[in-house]
């Protein structure tokens, strides 16, 4: 399954299979391995929204320049300037994920 996921991942497709809680956790871990982003709450939503317009290297590569306020500003720019389809509730979850895992700069 991991090999299949990797192949699909190479094609730019990320598959989230449904199953038991254990299988879900395994799938989430496999997905995180494919996306290169940390497996933590909010991973799937963050990937799902960000990847509409851009690949995911921007997230770790920008981490040293980011803190919660900077991520908030970025998410706001993506929504308001670039039209990213992200609801208020989703924006909060994405912000929590990015801040918890990719804030490398002192606040």
């Amino acid at each position: 399954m991991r090999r299949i996921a990797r192949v699909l991942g190479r094609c730019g497709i990320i598959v989230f299979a449904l199953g038991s809680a254990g299988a879900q956790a395994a799938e989430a871990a496999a997905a995180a391995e494919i996306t290169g982003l940390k497996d933590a709450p909010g991973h799937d939503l963050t990937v799902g929204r960000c990847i509409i317009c851009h690949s995911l290297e921007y997230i770790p590569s920008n981490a040293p320049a980011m803190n919660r306020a900077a991520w908030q500003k970025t998410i706001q720019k993506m929504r308001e300037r670039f039209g990213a389809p992200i609801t208020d509730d989703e924006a909060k979850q994405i912000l929590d994920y990015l801040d918890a895992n990719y804030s490398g700069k002192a606040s």
Partner: protein
Amino acid sequence: MLTRRELLLAGAGTWLSRRARAADAPGVTAAPQDSLGTLPGKQPLIQRAFRPPNFETPLADLAAPFTSNDVFFVRYHLTVIPWLDAASWRLKVGGASVRQPLTLSLAELKSGFERVTIAAVNQCSGNRRGLFAPRVPGVQWANGAMGNARWTGVRLRDVLNKAGVAAGALEVVFAGADSAVLPQTPNFVKSLPLERALDESTLIAFEMNGQPLPHWNGAPVRLAVPGWTGTYWMKHLTDIRIEPKAFDGFWMKSAYRLPTGAFPGARFASQETPETTPITEILVNSLIVGPVAGARLKRGEHAEVTGKAWDGGAGIAAVEVSVDGRRSWREAKLGHDLGRFAWRDFRMPVDTARAGPLEIAVRARSRNGAQQPDKLTFNPSGYHDNIVQAVSVEVA
């Protein structure tokens, strides 16, 4: 022979496996972690982002007088990038201040106007953003979001004059064929002040180093604005509009701006506010190509520091090298003058008689008197990093 698809997959695989390479950029600040990726028709380049493609030229590939098309850096904001057919491509010239709108094919563009070649540096506004301290968001470029090439095309001025510039024209606006996934995302559209558009060096270019433009560098036709940063060099150019008003799109009004008055360079009066102003000309700068940071030089053996110096078109007057912690400076030998918009090679022997650490610093001076500063002028978008660079090496 790899197919394009296989190449793309190989590129994606490189990204996925995150094959990291030691940073080889000079400078006191550590460069971002580099991994290589491949775009069709390009050699492996430092991959800053896969989609939209943002690929940086490795330092070693910046050594040649002209940067090969297959290693020239790639920079996009938006992800829908059509492969244009040169035969059906058309350039429209219009706008509210045009006398007679025109539509030109590539054949008409090539046969209808005088052909001009200019050697010029194309440097991304954000080159070296990744070396900024404190760090700022954006593509984390090290030193390779730049290159030097011979750009061949026709003068924008000649095309604008054929269409006719009406009295009251203020800006010329440029759009390309690439676009965004979402219709709400502002298309990448840029403007130039009329006088810069009418400058004899501003070209509608269709060749780069004697070859048709590579796809990833704007095929079949792009703008070349020698002396100004890459943001104005519109790729996949399809529309030119002569306008009596300041263009107020996102990429002019909100992006590519500097604090007003913070930097030297041409002013863009119609776009300036009391707070911010568009980035315009490239500032005087230099790059150490060799030795690389952390290199070990053999004691008693010949060694030299080599690199490039360039500016926004005044030309380079001198390049100075210091090997004593920036206390004393000696002039390096300059290479051929390839033109005032091109970079200039420099070289200088390094004394390897004594063992120990050595810091090699380089600073360039422009013919207009401007010199590289020691201190960074911070700006939130990470533009204009032209501070004096140094590499630390070891003589052993």
